[in-house]
């Protein structure tokens, strides 16, 4: 059944998008030495909007002033960081967008565009614009969903514009003539920031050149129809499967990095889908600070209230350990996720547990592709040092009144949970 991507996305998905957008800008501003641009001659400086609103003298002073560029860099990094942290996005997001526009205009003044950076900039505008719309309480509903859909739609539309331009202006010639080989050989042989240079093989191998042309055709078709990724899952999967490797290939072949675009491909992971609909009991070490913090973390992100927590030191914990033949020594070493009749331990348990969380946390389940031995090795290291690193409580965690609904403490509560079936939510009153 068709559905619009991100429908029903939870607020945590909006947080993830905010961190992604402003986090990327923070990294750029923090590590990009834009003050070096003062060395470039003024003859190269042709400022676009909004720098062209300044007089020539003022624009020239700005581009040639070390202090001005360092200030721009510091302020951009600062506001991007504040916006990423979620500190009143309407107050931090607008200055961040203004500074980013000036920063991008400055870079643009010295030459060709970087389309990947611009896609990120436009997405940032949309994010802040949607935050402003949500200022009105009646428009606050489904803000995450609307923001994610709008950002994804406009991101896809930039691909469409590229594809339509290429088909209209390039015609068949752009695909049939040896243009792609020429671009690849030239870009790969130039002195670039990156030096992968696989494009040189296009001059040597007819097979490689043929693959380049084929990839160019397929990629262009995908680009043209990109917005359909919003509504049609098979196309979305195909789009990601083609475009993500294509961006990586462009880096390897032509030394051109679409890093921002690649990072923004997380937008094609459906934030509105809950992966795991069943209930799960988390059996944890109640005296471990780290485990308790992890439980609190889970509680805050368990939008469907599917997780139930049992401290191994509680009566309920002892019953479960007996039922699942878990020794006391073992439960001191690992967390357990109990789903139906099966109990999962170590990293697998963690992945099972996060699969119940709302987006984007449940995407961590993709870490299951890492061999279990490797995952468990990391888990064991943390587990073995958790008391040393995070400390140990003198007594088992006692749930607060609000937490009680999700905590099973006694034998009766475990039995009531069992008899209520997986899908019935537990309520403290109905258990006794």
């Amino acid at each position: 059944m068709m559905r619009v991507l991100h429908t029903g996305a939870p607020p945590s998905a909006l947080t993830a998008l905010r961190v992604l957008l402003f986090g990327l800008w923070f990294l750029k501003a923090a590590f990009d030495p834009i003050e070096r641009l003062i060395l470039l001659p003024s003859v190269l400086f042709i400022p676009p909007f909004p720098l062209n609103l300044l007089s020539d003298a003022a624009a020239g002073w700005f581009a040639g002033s070390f202090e001005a560029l360092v200030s721009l860099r510091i302020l951009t990094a600062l506001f991007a960081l504040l916006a990423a942290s979620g500190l009143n996005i309407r107050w931090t997001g607008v200055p961040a967008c203004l500074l980013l526009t000036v920063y991008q205009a400055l870079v643009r003044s010295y030459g060709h565009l970087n389309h990947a950076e611009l896609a990120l900039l436009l997405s940032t505008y949309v994010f802040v614009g949607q935050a402003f719309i949500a200022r009105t309480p009646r428009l606050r509903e489904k803000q995450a969903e609307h923001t994610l859909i709008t950002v994804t739609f406009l991101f896809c539309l930039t691909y469409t514009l590229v594809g339509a331009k290429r088909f209209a202006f390039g015609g068949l010639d752009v695909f049939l003539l040896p243009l792609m080989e020429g671009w690849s050989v030239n870009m790969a042989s130039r002195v670039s920031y990156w030096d992968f240079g696989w494009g040189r093989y296009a001059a040597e191998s007819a097979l490689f050149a043929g693959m380049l042309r084929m990839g160019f055709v397929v990629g262009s078709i995908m680009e043209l129809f990109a917005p359909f990724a919003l509504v049609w899952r098979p196309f979305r999967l195909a789009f990601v499967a083609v475009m993500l490797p294509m961006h990586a290939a462009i880096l390897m072949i032509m030394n051109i990095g679409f890093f921002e675009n690649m990072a923004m491909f997380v937008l094609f992971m459906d934030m509105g889908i809950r992966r795991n609909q069943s209930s799960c009991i988390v059996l944890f070490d109640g005296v471990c600070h780290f485990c308790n913090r992890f439980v609190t973390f889970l509680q805050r992100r368990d939008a469907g209230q599917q997780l139930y927590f049992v401290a191994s030191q509680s009566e309920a914990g002892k019953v479960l350990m007996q039922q699942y033949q878990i020794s006391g020594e073992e439960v001191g070493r690992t967390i357990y996720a109990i789903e139906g009749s099966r109990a999962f331990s170590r990293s697998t348990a963690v992945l099972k547990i996060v699969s119940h969380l709302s987006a984007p946390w449940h995407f961590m389940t993709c870490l299951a592709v890492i061999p279990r031995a490797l995952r468990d090795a990391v888990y064991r290291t943390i587990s073995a040092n958790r008391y040393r690193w995070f400390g140990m409580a003198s007594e088992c965690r006692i749930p607060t009144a609000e937490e009680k609904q999700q905590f099973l403490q006694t034998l009766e509560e475990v039995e009531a949970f069992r008899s209520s079936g997986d899908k019935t939510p537990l309520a403290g009153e109905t258990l006794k």
Partner: protein
Amino acid sequence: MKRHSLEEQPSETLPVVSPWHRRLGPEWLLWGGIVLAAGAFGATLNLQNRRTALEVLLDVMVISGLTAVPVWARYVTGLNPVRRLFLMIMVGLLFLGQFAHRDLRLFPFINWAMYSGGTPGDAVTHERIFAILDDDSRILINPERLFPSLGMGTHRLANAISQRLNQALVEKDQESTAAFNALLASIFEAQRRFGDHGRAIRSLEVVRVSLPVSKKHGPESSREIVWRWEPS
């Protein structure tokens, strides 16, 4: 076989037939309008251009095709007017930037064109800048690494170097020559400050490299020193 007239059919089984424009979704008209309006904005230059018309047609086709998908039409029509207006404005600005061809005025709403044409040839050329050291040895300078703001993931600076060199070589006037020399002076200074070799540079040399697109059928690769620069 008994035939039922429409009056005889129970009302709940009547096929729901909505006008064709509703089935497509009313929004497609608006989307199409935005694209056309944006196209018309650049009409002074482009509307008579067959390729621009084709580009507009392709954009309209994709957007109206998407709007014909019921879930998307429902989503857009169900949007609050403020949100819908915001979406329209953003889409409109994107198209305005695409068709108006005035990158400098509408930045960051720009023309999204990448690898959409060119002239094929047997060989491709680019420039390399070498530093001549005091002992006459040469090192290759990487301007993109000296200015990471421009160079990382792009060929901005390489393009600027090629463009300015071509101007200086073709026009041979004082202004173009001075402009290219100023660019080389910047690269020299950046290399002196941020370069990693730590040795004194005496002068710069610009070498034009020509490479065959196909080694089997193309010409031999060649190198030619096209420019020399010394600090005054």
